[in-house]
């Protein structure tokens, strides 16, 4: 593992600080939602529908109800109705965010296999699990559609996808004419297996009522999203619902939206009059929190003889649920990465018997860039250009979609740096051979949008008389290091050492922030934490210069610096006092300030994107069909890096995820039954440590004064974008074959021909 760190810095921001919660996590004292001990706690287990479409004809719960320890068997016959189904909005909007606009156990209709049809509550988990098998449910099954091939004829073009935020069709210029006039065209179809998130912590909620007040411990990317969604479903004012989620054991989008378990836990807790813990099983994670949908993309490039793009047509076909027009936005970034005057992007959907698909790490960008960057590699071959040169030739300083300049860029530098790190000059030669392995090199550009919240975000900072500070915002730690990073931001703004700052999040009683999704958490939360901490510091300095007892009395606040918690005159650092002295002298137990930050207006004259470049060195054994990635080199321009270590970890994790998507991850639908056939970690393959190559993470510094006050563009997902096409392009270099499906597996390589090229 090699990394070049960003330029060293003086203050806490940017330093590779160890995780502040690391000790709690490795010693097991960090409590997750299904670990909260409560007196009288009961346990709930879900029962899933065994058919993909039809009706429940009868439920026999008698045996389950009689089983030892069982407190309730809840079904559509006795659960009660929800107050209202809230609309599907992305959780970044900061409001309601149901995973799908359907709530289970409200009627006898079955829309997808695994749909929750019963909830068994018992005094122990084992008893609830046992009784869940004793609920006898009969169905009248009807024919289902679950895969593209079953529904191709019924495809439709939606007006909008993605909760209405993305139009179903986008056009600029005249693609048809431009393709007709192009010197070169590449017209290819790409297929993608469905994927599931599989975080190590399965989704879970623990719920208890005190009178008409509900407390929920939830696994979520945003406690406020859970609060608003459950409030709407239950018809309870959200002020009476407190949601706590200090730690979430990985999410990757599976907990970005609010699925059914927290509201079901709350309803069950009301029914049995005791706290209820509801944790999904691993198998239920395949139907309980969405997925990346199976998809087919057709991409047509038109270019002139020099490889300059003149037209880009990108169509996507994918199954959605019976309820929502959902497709991950695969066409977005792929249509903005390169200068191209003529463009057409169209989403088509098929109504299928699955849950609504959902966000999954790099949602849309990873698949869309696979199509674009694999086709670009082919275009480079056709016009006889180095693939890297082709990218540089199509580089743009402006967003081709809006015409606005990028608020910051760095793509060119990322491409050049990555090429240097991987040794791209070797790409011009035929693939090297290492025993039975052929060694290929491939590359792709990487990009991810800079999302911001819709509404202002808030934080609170408080300094105590002992000179320590607590800074709070409702953000949840989903494993990214947000607690550490925000401690650094607060310490820097307050002029305190990080050891004297504590950051608290994960609780709706704290100042409101939206869910940490879309790589936006660091940007939006750092902005508001910085605002709150800076406001507090100004308040403290103002108090000191107005205090006759202070050595700073009468000074201009603009001349005061704070170092290590000591306010001093910039030009006479010997003159000053500690925050603590000021507060103690004035009998002040603490001082507090709030801060808020709202995103730039939508008509700001800039467009924003995080850019990067991915390079892969891949070994292929063409005889045995094996592909092993030996090295990945990524260079990224994510704006300001708040913590070099956690940023590197996120980018590295994203790159390995890209490898996983390229070579391993596939959920197989069983079309006869409409069930996922490999709903376990034994059969849904993710990489093991031995699959992880040498990963080289490199930063390109760019300053962005537009996206947010600290210029943070996010690192959660851009690390994944472009990895799969870089690997596919490296396979092409190694064995001369282009593979246009994900994942690329042994049979694809073996199908290529009898023996290895000699």
């Amino acid at each position: 593992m090699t990394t070049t760190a960003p330029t060293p810095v003086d203050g806490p921001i940017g330093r590779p600080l160890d995780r502040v919660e690391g000790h709690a996590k490795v010693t097991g004292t960090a409590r997750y939602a299904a670990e909260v001990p409560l007196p009288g706690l009961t346990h709930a287990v879900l029962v899933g529908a065994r058919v993909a479409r039809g009706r429940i004809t009868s439920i026999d719960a008698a045996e389950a109800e009689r089983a030892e320890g069982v407190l309730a068997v809840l079904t559509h016959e006795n659960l009660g109705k929800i107050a209202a189904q809230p609309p599907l909005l992305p959780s970044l909007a900061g409001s309601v965010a149901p995973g799908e606009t359907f709530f289970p156990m409200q009627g006898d209709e079955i829309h997808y296999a695994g749909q929750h049809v019963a909830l068994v509550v018992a005094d122990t988990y084992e008893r609830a699990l046992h009784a869940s098998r004793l609920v006898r449910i009969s169905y009248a099954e009807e024919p289902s559609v679950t895969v593209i091939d079953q529904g191709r004829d019924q495809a439709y073009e939606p007006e909008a996808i993605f909760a209405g935020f993305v139009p179903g069709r986008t056009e600029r210029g005249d693609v048809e004419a431009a393709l007709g006039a192009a010197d070169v065209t590449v017209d290819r179809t790409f297929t993608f297996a469905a994927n599931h998130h599989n975080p190590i912590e399965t989704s879970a909620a623990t719920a208890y009522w005190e009178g008409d007040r509900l407390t929920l411990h939830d696994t979520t990317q945003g406690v406020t999203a859970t609060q608003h969604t459950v409030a709407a479903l239950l018809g309870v004012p959200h002020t009476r619902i407190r949601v706590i989620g200090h730690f979430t054991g990985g999410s990757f989008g599976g907990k970005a939206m609010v699925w059914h378990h927290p509201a079901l836990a709350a309803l069950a807790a009301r029914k049995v009059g005791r706290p209820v813990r509801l944790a999904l099983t691993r198998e239920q994670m395949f139907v309980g929190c969405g997925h990346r949908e199976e998809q087919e993309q057709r991409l047509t490039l038109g270019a002139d003889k020099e490889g300059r793009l003149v037209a880009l047509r990108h169509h996507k076909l994918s199954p959605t649920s019976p309820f929502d027009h959902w497709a991950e936005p695969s066409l977005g970034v792929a249509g903005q990465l390169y200068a191209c005057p003529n463009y057409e992007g169209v989403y088509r959907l098929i109504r299928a018997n699955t849950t609504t698909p959902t966000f999954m790490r790099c949602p849309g960008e990873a698949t869309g860039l696979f199509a674009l960057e694999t086709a670009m590699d082919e275009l480079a071959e056709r016009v006889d250009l180095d693939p890297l040169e082709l990218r540089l030739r199509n580089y743009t300083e402006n967003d081709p979609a809006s015409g606005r300049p990028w608020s910051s860029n760095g793509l060119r530098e990322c491409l050049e740096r990555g090429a240097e790190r991987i040794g791209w000059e070797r790409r011009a030669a035929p693939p090297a051979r290492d025993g039975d392995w052929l060694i290929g090199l491939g590359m792709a550009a990487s990009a991810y949008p800079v999302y911001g919240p819709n509404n202002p975000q808030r934080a609170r900072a408080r300094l105590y008389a002992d000179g320590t500070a607590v800074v709070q915002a409702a953000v949840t730690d989903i494993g990214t290091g947000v607690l550490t990073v925000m401690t650094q931001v607060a310490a820097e703004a307050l002029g305190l050492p990080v050891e004297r700052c504590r950051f608290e999040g994960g609780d709706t009683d704290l100042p409101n922030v939206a869910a940490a999704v879309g790589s936006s958490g660091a940007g939006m939360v750092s902005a508001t934490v910085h605002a709150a901490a800076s406001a507090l510091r100004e308040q403290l300095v103002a108090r000191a210069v107005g205090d006759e007892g202070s050595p700073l009395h009468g000074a201009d606040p603009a001349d005061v610096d704070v170092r290590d918690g000591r306010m001093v005159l910039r030009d006479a650092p010997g003159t000053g006092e500690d925050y603590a002295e000021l507060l103690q002298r004035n009998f002040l137990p603490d001082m507090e300030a709030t801060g808020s930050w709202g995103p730039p207006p939508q008509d700001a004259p800039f467009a924003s994107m995080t850019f990067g470049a991915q390079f892969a060195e891949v070994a292929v054994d063409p005889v045995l069909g094996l592909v092993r990635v030996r090295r990945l080199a990524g260079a990224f321009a994510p704006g300001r890096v708040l913590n070099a270590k956690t940023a590197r970890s996120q980018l590295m994790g994203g790159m390995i995820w890209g490898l996983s998507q390229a070579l391993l991850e596939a959920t197989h639908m069983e079309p006869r039954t409409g069930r996922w056939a490999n709903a376990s970690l034994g059969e849904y393959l993710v990489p093991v440590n031995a699959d992880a190559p040498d990963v080289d993470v490199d930063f390109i510094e760019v300053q962005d004064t537009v996206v947010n006050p600290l210029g943070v563009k996010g690192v959660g997902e851009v690390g994944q974008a472009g990895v799969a096409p870089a690997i596919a392009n490296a396979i092409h270099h190694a064995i001369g074959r282009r593979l246009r499906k994900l994942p690329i597996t042994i049979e694809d390589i073996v199908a290529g021909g009898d023996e290895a090229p000699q």
Partner: protein
Amino acid sequence: MRPISYVRTEGADGIDRAVGLVTADPDSHFLAGGTTEVDLLRQHVLAPNRLVDINRLPLSGVEELPDGGLRIGALTRMSEVAAAPAVQERLPMVARALVLGASAQLRHMASMGGNMMQKVRCGYYRDGESPCNKREPGAGCAALGGVSRTHAVLGTSEHCIATHPSDVAVPLVALDAVIRTRTADSERAYAIDEFFLPPGDTPDREHPLTHGELITAIDVPTPPLARRSLYLKVRDRESYEFALVSVAAALEVRDGKVSGVRIALGGVGTRPWRARRAEDALVGGPATTASFDLAARAELAEARTTPMNAFKPELARRTLVRALETLTRDGSQS
């Protein structure tokens, strides 16, 4: 999880007691490492009312036999066998198959006897609900028209195409190991080829054992040619995955001709697949890629595939040729 009871047996007379307890009760199962059994209990695929824990019985260790073979106690853990110097020196393909199986944690738990008894990974067997002749005779086989990428292509029947999952059983089959057992009133020994039954019309019957019969040891011959042997495992990820195709092979070449050969295939058969046709085709012939290829084709000629596993015979052919080439080339023990 279903309520079940549990009893632990120990000591020298514990073997008789354990065998007696299970023999007398059709709803009792032995519990060794539990790495398969407990999963299947949780998934309601197996439904014993009582588990008889045999982990403390004196059935561990790797011993020398007078004929030069090795006796591996049924409760010896996979990791112990893999680390045994005698196994590493004399039976490299066994050691290699062990370390390429499962994960380090599982290898520390899983016993050798349990490995012989492990259940198939077929998703339709394991979901506890799909039609499965192995789980519920006569119910049908959902895998035949289902998701069957990992399923078998050799030894299949119209009733079952589940792949035998064991890695270590593959070299043991190549070596003609013997499975030793105890019943309430006798000791028995089974040639390993007779131990793993083809599914035929009775895929629920995987072994010839009677209820309550306990594996006590595995006797493994150590023929000289096995010192130059390998286990080659092909799979999607580098570790912790069952084989798509594997080959255990030992080869002896004199004057350019094959004087001795043992081959078994994993990942492709409903049982660990002894490749006798390939062996017969090779013995006495030239040790060349062309003859390896012909031998592999002979072995795989009767493979029967589904649309999803149609790649397996070809992959198996290539893997077998590669294994034999490797042994010819440098005698690699990997």
